[in-house]
């Protein structure tokens, strides 16, 4: 029977599609530019979103703890409210808890050398739980200090008018001393993080001696983390108990959802997709419309709608590959360019795959729309002179 031998893609269809594309002149460049811009926008906004997400939980992710106890209803790590220190001791009574430590997080005004004040988030975690956080005790020792030391991230140096180690600064009602710049803890919330030894942080914030901001716990090997968490929750009902990843996720959600930052960044990425879609549809549609007699001829000599769609799809994908590659190449250099201002931007490798998939979807959608005139054309028109 007829019609049982059919391939959607073939060399000649590819040649026809690409050559017609190349013959389309300025419209090809418009299409490539549109896709490059859309790709770049999606990738850049995705990188902003990813970097923001990482930054929102960077401190929680850095500490060396399996479980954390914070005040009831704490929305994010930066907004913990003081809790009694005895929760650390009480936790040790729960089966499976191997170690308990204390942490301080809170806001304090700091006076810059020019006399102006700015609020900083003071972070002080007991040394054995600090994980990847700066070891301020050691940094202070290198500067010949045992107390009142402060470390700041290098990206906040200008905000704090940091002019070198051992400079005295008023923080809260105390005198502190900058001892070091550290890297990797840039703030995304507008106020710098300032790292201190646990005891010093406690003093900077003027907390009562029996209060801490959070309790950090380590689960003994062989115990189920979630089971221990649930046991703690059952025993300590007036505080929140989270695993490290839960608190990290909670912090991310808070900053992404509550502040609208996530929606804004996502919306920009979606806009990038839509802009790309409109540009590609418009361009490929007009190229298709220009070649309508060729499509009619193809159909007259037996091309199926699938063949016609394949040619349009090839054109769309060629635009996608060329324009998309240009857009992808731009993401990292541009991210590096804006990093001094947007310190937390991170371009993960997977963003290339994600944006690539998005561009492939965009091209497929564009070709479906743009192929319409070619699919609908009456092959009988080829008989008309």
């Amino acid at each position, binding site marked *: 029977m007829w*019609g049982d031998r059919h391939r959607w893609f073939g060399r*000649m269809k590819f*040649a026809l599609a690409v050559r017609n594309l190349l013959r389309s002149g300025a419209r090809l460049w418009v299409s490539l530019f549109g896709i490059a811009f859309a790709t770049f926008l999606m990738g850049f906004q995705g990188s902003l979103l990813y970097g923001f997400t990482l930054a929102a939980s960077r401190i929680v992710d850095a500490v060396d703890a399996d479980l954390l106890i914070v005040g009831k209803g704490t929305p994010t790590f930066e907004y913990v409210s003081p809790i009694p220190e005895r929760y650390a001791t009480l936790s040790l009574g729960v089966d499976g808890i191997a170690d308990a430590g204390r942490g301080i997080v809170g806001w304090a005004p700091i006076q810059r050398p020019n006399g102006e004040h700015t609020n900083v988030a003071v972070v002080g975690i007991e040394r054995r739980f600090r994980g990847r956080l700066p070891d301020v005790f050691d940094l202070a020792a290198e500067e010949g200090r045992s107390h009142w030391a402060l470390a700041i991230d290098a990206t906040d140096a200008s905000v704090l008018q940091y002019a070198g180690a051992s400079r005295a600064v008023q923080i809260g009602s105390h005198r502190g001393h900058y001892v070091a710049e550290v890297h990797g803890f840039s703030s995304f919330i507008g106020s710098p993080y300032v790292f201190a030894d646990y005891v010093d942080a406690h003093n900077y914030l003027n907390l009562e001696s029996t209060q801490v901001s959070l309790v950090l716990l380590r689960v003994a090997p062989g115990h189920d983390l979630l089971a221990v968490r649930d046991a703690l929750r059952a025993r300590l009902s007036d505080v929140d108990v989270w695993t490290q990843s839960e608190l990290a996720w909670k912090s991310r959600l808070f900053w992404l959802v509550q502040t609208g930052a996530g929606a804004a960044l996502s919306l920009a990425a979606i806009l990038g997709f839509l802009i790309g879609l409109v540009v590609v549809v418009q361009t490929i549609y007009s190229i298709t419309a220009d070649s309508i007699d060729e499509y009619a001829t193809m159909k007259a000599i*037996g091309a199926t709608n699938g063949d016609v769609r394949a040619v349009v799809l090839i054109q769309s994908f060629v635009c996608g590959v060329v324009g998309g590659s240009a857009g992808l190449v731009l993401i990292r250099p541009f991210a590096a360019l804006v990093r001094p201002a947007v310190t937390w931007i991170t371009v993960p490798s997977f963003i290339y795959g994600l944006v690539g998939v998005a561009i492939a979807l965009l091209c497929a959608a564009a070709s479906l729309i743009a192929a319409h005139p070619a699919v609908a054309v009456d092959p009988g028109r080829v008989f008309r002179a």
Partner: protein
Amino acid sequence: MPNVEMRDVTLSFGTGPARAFALNGINLALCGGVFTVVSGPSGSGKTSLLSVLGAMLAPDSGAVEVNGTDIAAFRSAHRSAFRRDMIGYVFQLFRLMPALNAEENIRLALELRGQHSDRRRARDALELVGLADKAHLRPQEMSGGEQQRVAIARAIAHRPLILLADEPTASLDSANGLNVTKLLADLAADTQRIVVAVTHDPRVLPHAGRIISLADGRVATDQLCSARSQS
């Protein structure tokens, strides 16, 4: 030898009082080996006849049997498949793809038909129309006559049962028109295919084996002529 039989075929456009019959009770039998020319004034139904014969349009009523199979009853997708495999078209304006060279135009047609689109087959078809040495040229680099011969090569490369030509000489000068006409007549005789050309061009008629004249969607005259009909 292939044969086509059209029985009481009608095709109309429009509805109600505006309905016009392009074909009005056509009865015809066509067989291979004869170069058949369909002529008649504008609006007589020549192109409609070609469209129905080539499975481009389905008639309102009647039967179009190709080797005993009624293609008038086919659904759209089936008609498309039939057209792809069994019909070769030659158009007045050649309708070659300007982005492809002569050989590639033929290979595209083969590819669309799901057949091997290798260069050899395309070259064979070009050889048949005497253009083997112009395989690398694009349509715009060839004369009208050469383009039409490439179009014929494209139409016959997949070895169709029926070759349909719509005003194949209308865009050509006398010499090229004559060449193309002879080529179509020779193809009918040499390959025993059904070759039907719709034309206004009186230069074509002396080469026809059969001349069917249409008027108002009906067959006005139908005459076998010349030695070609005997071949």
